[in-house]
Structure formats: structure tokens, C-alpha cells
């Protein structure tokens, strides 16, 4: 049994007393080394969840526990060592004048010794494939490269949880693939829990488990396959379904006897192959 790393217990949040509730009585758990995707339309509360996880915001009701520690004003500095975040805009998260300065920044704030810092800079930059850019000025990097450096800066703190808050939304398709490869690679090697907040269906399909948010509530929580089986309902709450799921649905409607559970091209082709062999 995996250890619980994040727990939301009946969490409700709003920005002010007159304001509507952004999150309503949300409860869920995330485990060690798990890859989770959180999806939902804009305004469904996804990003608020991320901000609550490292104490950028605090809930009015309920409790959030990270690594056995409740998130409070007193614990946020400890919590932020455990929870690293990468945001959407690659241009808003640079402080250093070179790539390695930038990775060093977070460690300096935590008083890590120089030798250890140098070691971690090398380790994390090579983990994201950016080691040869150590002395490059950040503005000379592409969007995807910037996000990889941002990930390295976060990894240098050795977090238990890495949150990507729409971190690929501003990148071109190649930049996206680059980031997802990097992240999957690091996640496997470092025993990280990965939380991807995204609209990108490919990123969702690759997660172990998906949390679907709608109007501030946890609408569903299941494996991608089970989530995308609820096609009509997902569309109703403003979400897309992957091409393969949409085509499976149409095939089924057209009278092709398939299981209608495929998540990728290979699986769907295989289902079609079987269906055509038995007819």
C-alpha cells in the first residue's frame, strides 16, 4: 500500500465573504509516486487546489494535509519544501541571470551549502536535459527549455510533490512533448508524486488517475479509461474527449461491435482487428 502524500478533507474555499465558493467540500487523496491529472473547465477550481496545496491560499473550511503535516501559516515553509510548482507562463518565473543562477535561487533561500548546491544544479539540469545551457541567459531559451529549467529549479529542492499548473499551455506541440517526456522521466527516477493540471488530453491519458473538477466540486475520480467512458457527461461539463474515444463512440453508433474502451490508436486498431475477425 502506498503512503498518502496529499489529503484534502472537506475543503471549501472562497476569495472573500461576499464571493461565491470556488471549492465546495472537496475531499481526495494522492499517494506517493502517483501520477495524477486534474481536469475541469476554466473556473472549476483546479488552480485553486494547486494554490491551497502549498499554502499560497488557505481554506475557510476543512483541512489539507501534506506528508502528514497540516498546511497552516506556521507550516508553510516546511510544506513548500515538499511541494514544488511550475506555472503556466515560462517568462514569469525567472529570477537568475543565467540558467544555473536560477536553479540556485531556491536553494540559496533554503541555506543549502555550496558544494551540495553545485551537485544538485548538475543533477537536476541533466535530469531535464539542460546541462549544456548552464551559463545561458534565460531569455535566450525557447518556451519549452524555460519550462524545463523551471522544473529543474523545483527539483533541486527535492520535493515530494511536483505540481504542473497548465505548465505546457503556452508551448508549441514539440515543447509540450519535451516537457511531458522530461517529467515522466524524473517522476519515475525520483519517487515523486506528479499532479498535472491541464486541458491537454494527451497528458490526461498518460496519468494513472484523473480527478475531474466541476463547479468547485470533485465530479469524478478514476482511471483515464473509466473517465473517458463517460463521454456525453464530460461534454456536458465543458470537457473534450480524446480522438480515439470520440471515434470509438461513432464506430459503436455505426454498428461496429467493439468494446469502446480504447485509449490510444494501437488499442483501437486491435479492437477493430478482433471485431473484423469474428464477423
Amino acid at each position, binding site marked *: 500500500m502506498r503512503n498518502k502524500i496529499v489529503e484534502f478533507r472537506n475543503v471549501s474555499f472562497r476569495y472573500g465573504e461576499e464571493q461565491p465558493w470556488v471549492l465546495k467540500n472537496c475531499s481526495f487523496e494522492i499517494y506517493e509516486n502517483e501520477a495524477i491529472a486534474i481536469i475541469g473547465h476554466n473556473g472549476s477550481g483546479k488552480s485553486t487546489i494547486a494554490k491551497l496545496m502549498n499554502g499560497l491560499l488557505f481554506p475557510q473550511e476543512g483541512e489539507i494535509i501534506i506528508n502528514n503535516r497540516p498546511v497552516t501559516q506556521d507550516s508553510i515553509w516546511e510544506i513548500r519544501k515538499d511541494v514544488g510548482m511550475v506555472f503556466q507562463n515560462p517568462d514569469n518565473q525567472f529570477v537568475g541571470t543565467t540558467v544555473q543562477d536560477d536553479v540556485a535561487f531556491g536553494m540559496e533561500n533554503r541555506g543549502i551549502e555550496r558544494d551540495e548546491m553545485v551537485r544538485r544544479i548538475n543533477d537536476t539540469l541533466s535530469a531535464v536535459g539542460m546541462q549544456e545551457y548552464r551559463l545561458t541567459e534565460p531569455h535566450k531559451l525557447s518556451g519549452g527549455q524555460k519550462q524545463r529549467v523551471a522544473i529543474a529549479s523545483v527539483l533541486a529542492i527535492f520535493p515530494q510533490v511536483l505540481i504542473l499548473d497548465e505548465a505546457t*499551455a503556452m508551448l508549441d506541440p514539440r515543447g509540450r512533448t519535451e516537457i511531458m517526456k522530461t517529467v515522466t522521466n524524473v517522476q519515475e527516477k525520483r519517487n515523486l508524486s506528479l499532479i498535472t493540471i491541464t486541458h491537454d488530453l494527451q497528458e490526461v491519458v498518460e496519468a494513472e488517475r484523473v480527478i475531474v473538477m466541476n463547479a468547485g466540486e470533485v465530479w469524478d475520480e478514476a482511471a483515464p479509461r473509466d473517465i473517458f467512458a463517460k463521454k456525453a457527461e464530460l461534454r456536458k461539463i465543458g470537457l473534450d474527449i480524446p480522438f480515439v474515444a470520440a471515434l470509438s463512440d461513432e464506430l459503436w453508433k455505426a454498428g461496429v461491435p467493439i468494446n469502446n474502451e480504447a485509449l490510444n490508436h494501437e488499442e483501437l486498431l486491435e479492437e477493430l482487428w478482433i*471485431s473484423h475477425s469474428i464477423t
Partner: protein
Amino acid sequence: MDITFNHVSYIYQKNTPFAHKAIADLSFYIPSGTFTAVIGHTGSGKSTLIQHLNGLVRPSEGEVTIGKYRLTNDEKPDNMKMLRNLVGVVFQYPEHQLFEETVKKDIAFGPKNFNVPEDEIENRVRDITTEVGLPEELLGRSPFELSGGQMRRVAIAGVLATKPKVLVLDEPTAGLDPRGQHEMMDMFYDMHQRQALTTILVTHSMEDAVKYADNVIILNDGTKYMEGKPEDVLTQREALHNVQLDVPEMVQFINAFSEKFEQKVPFRRQSEAELAREIRQVLKGAGKDE
């Protein structure tokens, strides 16, 4: 309005050690009333191309014409303002450019600058507000109190309020959720058709290019790499891979299917429902043979 690029090059910081050619010998023709998608990876010259369309920059070499307006290195139209009135550009993340006290003032800013009479502005603001899907009660609010999606709509309404004949869209749906993306693209397409606009969409989305564009232009390293109908260009896997682009997902699937079942299914921008029926036909046919 017809648009032509005639051997256009653009050099940033010309005559300095930092000189950089963003566009090189680029030529194409966009007929009036068509919808063109411009695709290319980051740094391929898309943004520089856009900036030529309303005279934000002029070509270092070659010639750009937009309707009767002509732009060259040493020549610009007498009435640049008129050109900018005719070419509406929705830049990336246009909501970053909002600045007025109220939504209404922000939308009215463009037409006011182009000396549109007050009562006409009133009418336009009201019409466009509905058209972009903003509730009318937001008009008196500060644009900065709105949600991201609403702010985007206000910014777009501001561009549309000048009644452009050419609409240039630079990744207009980036950062929106899927429903917001569909709604916004459908809105642009609807407007494109009803007002017979000449529309140029810069996008990373092969799916949008397939769905809306009459023609696509693929840029690479500041030059035209490919040009043609989406079904002809966006099916060329090898050629697209060479410039770090991928074919649309449906094309990928059709290719794999055709290979596995040894029967060619053509890509002709069909819907998923149509494709499903074609697959059923293939499966039936294959069944009979055995």
C-alpha cells in the same frame, strides 16, 4: 481584400552585429474572402509575418500589398491609419492589452480613434458584445474584474468594433478551456462567413487548420515550406516531421488503419462519424473476402 507577399524579407536590427533575418524571400497570395492557416514551430517567422499585415513593420526587401495598400522598405501608404482600420489583429493573449475603466470604453476605444460617430459606436458596442458572447450587464464593469475568458472576449470585441475587412488571429484560443476554444473558433468562423472577411489564423492546432482553413501555409526558418489545401498539405507526414510538425491525429489514425487493413481510406477532412461509417464499410468488405 487580396493580400500578396512578393519576395518579402525582414531583417531585425539591420546593419548591426545582431542582424537577424526573420523572414526570407517569402511570397504568397491570399485571395479575398478566404480563410488561411499559418503554421510553423516557434521562431519560424509567424509573428513577423503578422506584423507586416497592418504595417507595424515594413519589409526590408520585397513588397506587401493589402487591397490597394502597398508596403515596401521605402514606401508606405499615405493613410496608414485607414489600413489599420481595415486590418484587425488579435494578438496572443490580447487581454493583456486591456486598459480602460469600463468594458464599454475599452471596446469603444478603437472606433473612437478612427473617428466613428458616437451613436454609431453605441450600436456597434452593443452588437459586438452579443456577438462575442458577453452579457450586456458587464459593459459598465471594469474589465479587470472579469474572468480570463471574459477578458479575452472584451479584447476581441475591441478589435472587431473597428469593423475590419481582414481579420488576423494569432493563436486566439491559447489558454482557454476546450469549450471556450470551440466557442471562440466557431464565433470567428461564423463572422468570417457572414461578413466575407479575409481571415488569417496563426495556430499550432492542426485540428483547427483542418476544420476551418481553405488554405494552409507552413513556415520554416522564415521561408514558405509548403502551401495548399489542408487535405493535401497536412497529410504529408515526412515533410512535416522534417520541420518539427505532426500530421493531425485523424490522419495518423487513418494511416495506421490503412496499413493494418491493407486498404486505403482517404483523408478528406471527414467528421469522426463519417470516418466511422467508412471503417465499417472496409470491415464488411474484408469480412466477405474470407
